[in-house]
């Protein structure tokens, strides 16, 4: 149930982000979800792609510092309070969330949220127990 996310260090320099997206474009890699966290000096791009292992290799070959991070993809009803309900389950289980961002596409009319949590296995367990749908990689990578 744990999804492989690609995380890439991008220095805050004109053209650097373009270089990264250009590499992905040339290799025909589709960004299924993406977010960028940024500071004064650098940013970190996190993304979901169909073939994370190949993507990591390609990105590193093109001189970027990158790694695979384990995240989970959670199906959240697209109604007010939907996200809040999921966060309460994690909070009650004392699992802290490092960051989250939403998927571009929907799944069966539900929103998809990518969560980076301190303990992904435990998060999958408590969410499943509360009937929250956590999507496996095969489904997500092919969306």
């Amino acid at each position: 149930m744990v999804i492989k996310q690609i995380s890439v260090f991008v220095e805050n320099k004109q053209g650097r982000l373009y270089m990264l997206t250009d590499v992905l474009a040339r290799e025909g890699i589709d960004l299924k979800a993406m977010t960028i966290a940024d500071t004064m000096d650098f940013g970190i791009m996190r993304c979901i792609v169909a073939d994370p292992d190949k993507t990591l290799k390609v990105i590193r070959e093109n001189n970027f510092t990158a790694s695979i991070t384990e995240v989970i993809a959670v199906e959240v009803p697209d109604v007010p309070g939907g996200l809040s309900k999921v966060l309460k389950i994690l909070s009650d289980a004392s699992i802290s969330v490092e960051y989250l961002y939403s998927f571009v596409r929907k799944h069966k009319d539900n929103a998809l949220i990518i969560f980076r949590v301190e303990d992904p296995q435990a998060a999958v367990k408590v969410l499943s127990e509360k009937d929250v749908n956590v999507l496996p990689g095969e489904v997500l990578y092919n969306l």
Partner: protein
Amino acid sequence: MYWNEHIECMPIDQMRELQSRRLQDTVFRVYQNVPFYKKKMQEMGIAPEDIRSIEDISLLPFTTKDDLRENYPYGLFASPMSEIIRIHASSGTTGKPTVVGYTRNDITNWSECAARALVCAGADSHSVVQVAYGYGLFTGGLGMHYGVEKLGGSVIPISGGNTKRQIMIMKDFGTTILCCTPSYALYIAEVLEEMGIDPRELNLKSAILGAEPWSEEMRRDIEKKLNILAIDIYGLSEITGPGVSCECDRQVGMHINEDMFYPEIISPDTLKPMADGQNGELVFTTILKEGIPLIRYRTRDITRLNRDVCACGRTSVRMHKVMGRSDDMLIIRGVNVFPTQIESVLDRFPELSLNYIIYVTREKSVDMLEVKVEMSENLYSDEVKEIEKLQQRIAAEIHAVLNINVKVTLVGPKTIERSEGKAKRVVDLRKI
């Protein structure tokens, strides 16, 4: 005005005799007491008796900063520790500092040099001297301090930093002479202006500035902004500290205290002596030191010598303002910095590769150091706060080694330009 007219204006042939005698004594001393020199001289087939006059100096071996490192900390001392009364240190080329020791006579002689320098800058027993060089292992503060006491002036041992307090004391205590780095003098001038204080409200007459490279333009700027005479002083802890040489008020070259430090200029490539007036690497032999006498110490400073008698009447040989280095040492806010010191810190972080570049800039007269380093291909954390913490940890470890703050910038692998041959590690953008 001279502090020691007998020595400072000594006829040349008499000076050569004095130097010859002192060189012979020094060579005997190191041959007997320092195994490093005995071994080196034996390998070269030189005995102390072979040194009959100062002209024979070129028979002797050189000493380098690496030799000091390999004999860290006390291996080159020629006096027992019971006779060493002071220890100073400066940056080494790696993590370990270069250590020097002084006997009571060494401190007396060094104070003499600093007193001569102070008189060169117009000081006398009525002077109030504010020593804004750092006090501590760095020789700047204590070196000038002892000079002022020897001279009988009044010393204000304020050390560096806290500029507004420096200015308040300068104004209230009636400071007549300021000792600090040239960039700090310029910074004081800028803060004075910000505070709306006219330098003519101060009692300041001159400043003795050194420990870092500066230009003639910078001198004129300081003199104009502070309404003073700015005097260039030279020194290095290996030889003694500030006062190895100093300008007089004619400001044409620094008078070397050659009764204690015999200068030569060599080609850094062939190591052959060069003629007076030619630019090359400055080499000193300490001919009156007891604690750690050094034979033909390669300073790595590029300059030239002038033996014309100065208009001030001093006969001592003068050295031109230092024009550069024959190694990659940087001087940042008066602190010696070797790229290898920074490299040894970066090497401790598995998150980094060893490709780095150091940018030096000068913002508002303050030297700034930025270390740009490539990360390894593996991103060890994708959290912003963790990466910021890494930057801070690197900066803290560099601070622990150099004692100066640096900005650390992380960049992607292979994004720093590669140069063919020797890697370019330093980009100095300062307009000195």
